[in-house]
């Protein structure tokens, strides 16, 4: 059994690194139009999602909660200029769902930007939004986000789920890196980022219980920490998490003393901004996996209130 102290430590160190490097969550207003402003929204949206998980699970210490709140305030107020940069993104590319996707987790944490809400409601009425050709797992994500926003998803979540790789439970030995990321994201969307493990359909939960141990073993051996971290999140989303000891110990050992988590193998080198772009994601994943696994392992110790 993996110790809760180990799991907790990974998350705290990850958040400390993210807080210390918070200027890495930056926009590039002068970006080449081919790249665009929204290219840098993704890390900010991910940060908001993870901070939301940390608050929701309520297992972080007061230090972690304080770091998370400061991070959120910083990116909302300073980086996004109170959400106005999201509006600018939406003006530039009105049909893109990205401003909405980045906005939603902030909204759920009490931040507001009425213009994005107007744009979202309008986009939702467009045939184009439900017709746009995207990967099934991303379509599921859009439907899940619409549901969370309070809109009626089109297609519905069940229909979007059925189109994903995971819902079809194919041969587990065909899973390689891309498919593995499709699997983790399908689970994230189905469970609302781990909030509702009960929303995993039983045939998917059973499939994952059978095969997730193999994938953990595989990507631990390959030392692909970013993917391993996401798979540890999936474990924590299952009806009976395993808290795989070898995977958690390997994951924790890969983390740098300052809290950074390399994406694969060793820590890369580079200028601060480049380094941030290379490792912010696995480090956020580490904070995510830690918060969720800690919460699940603690609730496993506490009897359900009757």
């Amino acid at each position, binding site marked *: 059994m993996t110790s809760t102290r180990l799991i907790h430590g990974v998350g705290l160190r990850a958040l400390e690194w993210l807080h210390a490097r918070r200027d890495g969550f930056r926009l590039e207003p002068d970006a080449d139009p081919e790249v665009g402003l929204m290219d840098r929204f993704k890390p900010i949206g991910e940060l908001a999602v993870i901070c939301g998980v940390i608050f929701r699970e309520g297992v972080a210490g007061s230090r972690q909660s304080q770091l998370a709140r400061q991070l959120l305030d910083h990116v909302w107020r300073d980086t996004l200029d109170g959400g106005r940069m999201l509006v600018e993104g939406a003006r530039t590319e009105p049909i893109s769902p990205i401003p909405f996707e980045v906005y939603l987790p902030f909204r759920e944490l009490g931040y507001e930007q009425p213009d994005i809400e107007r744009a979202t409601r309008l986009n939702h009425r467009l045939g184009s939004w439900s017709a746009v050709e995207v990967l099934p797992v991303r379509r599921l994500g859009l439907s899940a986000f619409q549901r969370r926003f309070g809109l009626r998803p089109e297609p519905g979540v069940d229909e979007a789920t059925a189109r994903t790789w995971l819902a079809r439970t*194919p*041969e*587990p*030995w065909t*899973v390689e890196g891309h498919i593995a990321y499709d699997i983790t994201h399908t689970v994230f969307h189905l469970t609302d980022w781990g909030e509702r493990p009960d929303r995993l359909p039983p045939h998917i939960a059973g499939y994952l219980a*059978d*095969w997730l141990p*193999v994938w953990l073993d*595989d990507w631990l051996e390959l030392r692909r920490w970013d993917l391993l971290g996401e798979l540890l999140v999936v474990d924590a989303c299952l009806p009976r998490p395993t808290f795989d000891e070898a995977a958690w110990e390997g994951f924790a050992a890969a983390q740098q003393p300052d809290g950074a988590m390399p994406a694969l193998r060793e820590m890369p080198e580079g200028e601060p901004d480049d380094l941030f772009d290379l490792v912010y994601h696995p480090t956020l994943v580490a904070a995510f996996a830690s918060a969720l696994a800690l919460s699940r392992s603690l609730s496993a110790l506490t009897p359900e209130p009757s």
Partner: protein
Amino acid sequence: MSQSGLPPLTGAVRDLAHEVVSALRGGGHLAGSTALADDELGLAAVRVLGADVLLPATLAGYSLSPERVAAFRTATLAFPAAPGAAPVTAWSHWGMRRALRTLSGPDEDPALPDTGEPGASWLHSLPWQRFTHQLAVLGALALPGLPSEVATTAALRPVDLARGFVRAVRRRDWLQAAGAARWLALLDGVPDTLGLDTGLDFVLLMSDDDPRVALQAHAARHIRDERLLDEGLRA
């Protein structure tokens, strides 16, 4: 067929495996059966493939020449498992003695007394990865109607073996994958989502027709076909 660049024993084992696969697939004809194993390298190769050398008879019901059985007996006598040998070594030798008894009838061979099963307690505590590896090495014991403590232990852990198969495929360890698949073909309780049939074909395709892989994979397919036939007849 000779394999250049391989250690002599590896090449001899591959040649022998190739011959057994041909016999298993080709209606029991054993090319060069009289030449089997009367030199040292040949006998060692028989010892390495173990009871699988007799697979055309024990699995497919073809008859074997008395010379071939005699040579198999010689290899069994020549390479007993030393006291303190690794469990898989002791078990593969048990498998050879057992196969000989199956073929030669109820009378005890005074040179090969029945000393019972070597014991399988080492398997019980192994995590699924190592468990699958050991079972795959002992693929020759995965036969319908060959009860053993190893088979009993395997039957208790079909999901672990299925995981080991997936892991072996991912690691491109085709021999381990095929050996695990042979046990899976024999067992109940394997998750349907594994996709064993296509998995076997995938292993055969990817292993470039390595004869040792092909031997395990064809044995697995044979076992599986028989089971499906039995189930069809019962239904």
